[in-house]
């Protein structure tokens, strides 16, 4: 079984130096020596990266991942054309849920590259190790403690980008002993408004954030380790040009305590148990906007407590993995509107009426080696999911729409997947089948007048929604012919009770200027299909050509196109690399979005193409190393937006950047 474990940037990444130089997804430049070689080999050189890219930038380099942009910060990842509610986005297996009703704080915005070891992206039902999903999983993996006794290491990173006057600074300190390990890092990012093509300033696109993390481990004995991890992330003054409101505070505290047992010679090879807690505060406000119909505050909170315990067993030809996990989440969001007539009282409502989610489930997977070149695997997950409404006023508000609504709802969720993998040097193929279910998200189930600026409708949740069910198949194959490589990957999802908003003409919009109200309903079925063709050709050892084409399709049973489906996309790249220098020129673009979904509020996004140039070199000194990455993005200063840009906000115009890292051994 091949779980699509994709190191951040498996498809494209800045791996153009020799192996001991920063693979872009690695935590920092100092850790190269310890990087597990398997992961390192997986890095490909399709693309070149900045050392200080945001998590968002990294994710965007993956074929199947597209980032929905509402501004220059906190992009929402989509995987196989599905957004966060259909995905299982976790931090090292920990469930964590954004606190914004308008999806302005995807989980990926609460961690920084400095926190992470790698990101694993799993498509469809292969992504159910940590929870249920339809579209797949993104797991942001934290580094583990290293007991190599190398003492103290440190590194400093600095970055500057001309577009938006974007400044980044990072500091990393690491100490490793035989029994004790500690790592402290911090990163600060600040950007002004960026300019779209032709120097058009995009107002309210500024942001500022810092992130600090502490990772510490202690080796209790030869086989037992204890790890603690704390991440604190705080963003302030974040503008959202595509939305009517900005964010004055997005703050997260993410903590975990992990016990690990490892022993290759026992029946149980590893047993990892984690307890975790995270809390998010997210405050939307519109105080920076000069013209609004009405002033409002929209704070939201999300707290999650959880655990998992996973066991790995290798026995003969079987590789078994068991995972028992559970979590409890509280999501509360409110809205206070300030009437223009000061004599009138404040207008207040619960937009997420203190929804508590309990989940507990079990997961099991067996990978069985048929022979040297092929294996089969099967996995199942069962879980019990309960939503309850904590706030009486919230229950009463929802009873306006659902008079007999009770405050608690149980769901039983099932997932099953199987795949077959055959692999030889010249040829490999993977074929997978899966069935999975997911519960509606808090907004889909219980949201109360959530304004969606994309289609200009207020949304009402529906607690009676059926579980969304997906039947999925995927196939992937690669041929290697000397210098030429070609691969095709494709997946197809047939989704029953596809959850989407439907206009209710009897309801009157709450938001001033909104076109109406939609309630969430389940479309009888929907189909989502994607196919990617990847090719590469090595002209010489140093010179490589890459090209990739993608096509995506999505349609509902109402014969309407689904929204946010990627149009025809392409990427072409030429890369030159030596052990100390690399350069790459790439052309990336989308075709015309001809199958846009006007029914769901989309308009047609025209085709675009942008040209980027990335360069980098490394200077090794006696006891230190300097890594430079620099280049020009959008060289031709194209003015464009993509299908995934909320309300067609334009993307960045020409941007010169430089990242410098100084690593002290």
């Amino acid at each position: 079984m091949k779980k699509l474990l994709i190191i951040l940037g498996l498809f494209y990444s800045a791996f153009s130096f020799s192996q001991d130089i920063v693979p872009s997804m690695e935590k920092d430049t100092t850790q190269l020596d310890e990087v597990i070689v398997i992961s390192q080999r997986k890095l490909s050189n399709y693309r070149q990266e900045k050392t200080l890219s945001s998590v968002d930038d990294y994710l965007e380099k993956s074929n199947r991942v597209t980032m929905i942009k509402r501004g220059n910060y906190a992009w929402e990842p989509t995987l196989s054309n599905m957004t966060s509610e259909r995905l299982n986005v976790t931090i090292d297996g920990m469930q964590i849920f954004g606190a914004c009703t308008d999806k302005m704080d995807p989980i990926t915005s609460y961690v920084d590259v400095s926190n992470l070891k790698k990101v694993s992206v799993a498509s469809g039902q292969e992504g159910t190790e940590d929870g249920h999903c339809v579209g797949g999983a993104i797991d942001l993996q934290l580094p583990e403690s290293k007991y190599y006794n190398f003492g103290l290491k440190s590194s400093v990173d600095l970055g500057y980008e001309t577009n938006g006057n974007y400044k980044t600074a990072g500091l990393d300190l690491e100490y490793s002993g035989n029994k004790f390990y500690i790592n402290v890092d911090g990163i600060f990012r600040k950007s002004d408004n960026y300019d779209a093509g032709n120097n058009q300033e995009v107002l309210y696109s500024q942001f500022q954030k810092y992130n600090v993390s502490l990772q510490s481990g202690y080796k209790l004995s030869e086989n037992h380790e204890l790890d603690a991890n704390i991440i604190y992330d705080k963003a302030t003054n974040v503008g959202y040009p595509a939305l009517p409101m900005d964010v004055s505070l997005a703050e997260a505290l993410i903590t975990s305590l992990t016990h690990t047992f490892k022993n290759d010679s026992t029946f149980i090879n590893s047993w990892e148990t984690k307890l975790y807690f995270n809390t998010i505060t997210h405050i939307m406000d519109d105080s920076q906007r000069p013209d609004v119909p009405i002033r409002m505050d929209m704070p939201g909170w999300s707290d999650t407590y959880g655990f998992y315990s996973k066991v790995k067993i290798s026995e003969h030809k079987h590789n078994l993995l068991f995972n028992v996990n559970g979590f409890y989440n509280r999501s509360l969001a409110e809205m206070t509107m300030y009437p223009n007539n000061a004599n009138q009282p404040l207008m207040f409502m619960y937009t997420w009426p203190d929804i508590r989610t309990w989940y507990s489930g079990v997961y099991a997977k067996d990978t069985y080696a048929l022979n040297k070149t092929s294996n089969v695997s099967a996995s199942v997950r069962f879980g019990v999911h309960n939503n309850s409404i904590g706030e009486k006023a919230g229950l009463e508000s929802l009873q306006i729409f659902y008079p007999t609504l009770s405050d608690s709802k149980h769901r039983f969720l099932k997932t099953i997947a199987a795949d077959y993998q055959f692999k030889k040097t010249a040829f490999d193929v993977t074929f997978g089948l899966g069935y999975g279910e997911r519960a509606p998200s808090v907004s889909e189930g219980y949201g109360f007048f959530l304004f969606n600026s994309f289609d200009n409708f207020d949304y009402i949740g529906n607690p009676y929604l059926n579980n969304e069910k997906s039947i999925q198949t995927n196939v992937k194959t690669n041929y290697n012919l000397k210098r030429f490589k070609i691969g095709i990957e494709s997946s197809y999802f047939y989704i029953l009770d596809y959850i989407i908003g439907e206009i209710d003409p009897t309801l009157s919009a709450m938001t001033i200027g909104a076109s109406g109200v939609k309630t969430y309903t389940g479309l009888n079925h929907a189909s989502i299909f994607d196919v990617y063709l990847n090719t590469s050709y090595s002209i010489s050892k140093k010179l490589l050509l890459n090209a990739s084409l993608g096509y995506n399709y999505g349609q509902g049973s109402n014969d309407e196109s689904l929204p946010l489906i990627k149009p025809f996309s392409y990427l072409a790249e030429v890369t030159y690399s030596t052990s100390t220098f690399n350069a790459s020129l790439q052309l990336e673009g989308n075709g015309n979005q001809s199958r846009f979904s006007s029914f769901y509020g989309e308009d047609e996004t025209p085709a675009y193409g942008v040209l980027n140039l990335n360069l980098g070199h490394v200077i090794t000194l006696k006891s230190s190393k300097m890594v430079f990455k620099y280049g020009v993005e959008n060289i031709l200063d194209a003015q464009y937006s993509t299908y995934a840009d909320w309300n067609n906000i334009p993307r960045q115009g020409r941007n010169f950047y430089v990242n410098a890292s100084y690593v002290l051994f």
Partner: protein
Amino acid sequence: MKLKYILPIFVLALFNVACSTDDNDEFAPSTNETQGLNLIQELENDTHTVELYNKSGFFYTGYNEVSVRIKDKATNTYIENASLTWMPLMQMPTMQHSCPNSNPVKVNGKNTIYEGAIIYQMTNTDGSGWSLILNYTINNVDYVATSNITVLQHTNQNVASFMGNDDNRYIVAMIEPKNPIIGNNDLVVGVYKMETMMSFPVVENFMLTLDPRMPGMGNHSSPNNTNLTFNQTDNMYHANLSLTMTGYWVLNLKLINDNNVVVKGEDVTETNEQSSLYLEIEF
């Protein structure tokens, strides 16, 4: 082991039972019966002091529930067997008029409290103008107590007094919800016809359409409201009023008579923000 927990509970329970018996027998409710109420005013004559209570301790325009208690000045005890009628009176420059009201009747489960309601449709800006005449009978002897009273203007329009298209004068008053919630509220409205200056009978079997709006926010409405229909048992009009948020709401109404003719009020449209017949809620 478990006894440790059960025992105190048992003792506590016993103790509580004892207490409550005491209450019923001896410290009888003369004082307790006004618990949670505030004195509005006392009306006095030679023999009795009549105490008027409600939750706030003030009369406001609109619907007022009033609790009445009569104290015998001689014995200093509260009368338990009176029958009462009252007549609120507004002194205008050229004439007098009354208002819709229901006479106080003994409250179930209470010994000394009589409860009635008065709907003041207007008041002077300083609260003056109203007086209350209270006639009561105890053991076949008639008494009267009278006094000027103060009626304050409520901040919201919770009562509307108007001339209908049929040339009759009507009063529409909100009775419930007293404490609105975000959610479904039972809306109760009283509709009265001003037959004479002194007579305000209940209007039966009309209908009121209901369209709640928030003028402070684009004049949006709310879903699943019902029209107000007449209920024989309490002689009032009932509807479901859904309020999606706190704040200032205008309940736009149209009064429709039993021949399906609109007596007062208009639909809210793009051009007409508000009906001429409306009530207000703030919470």
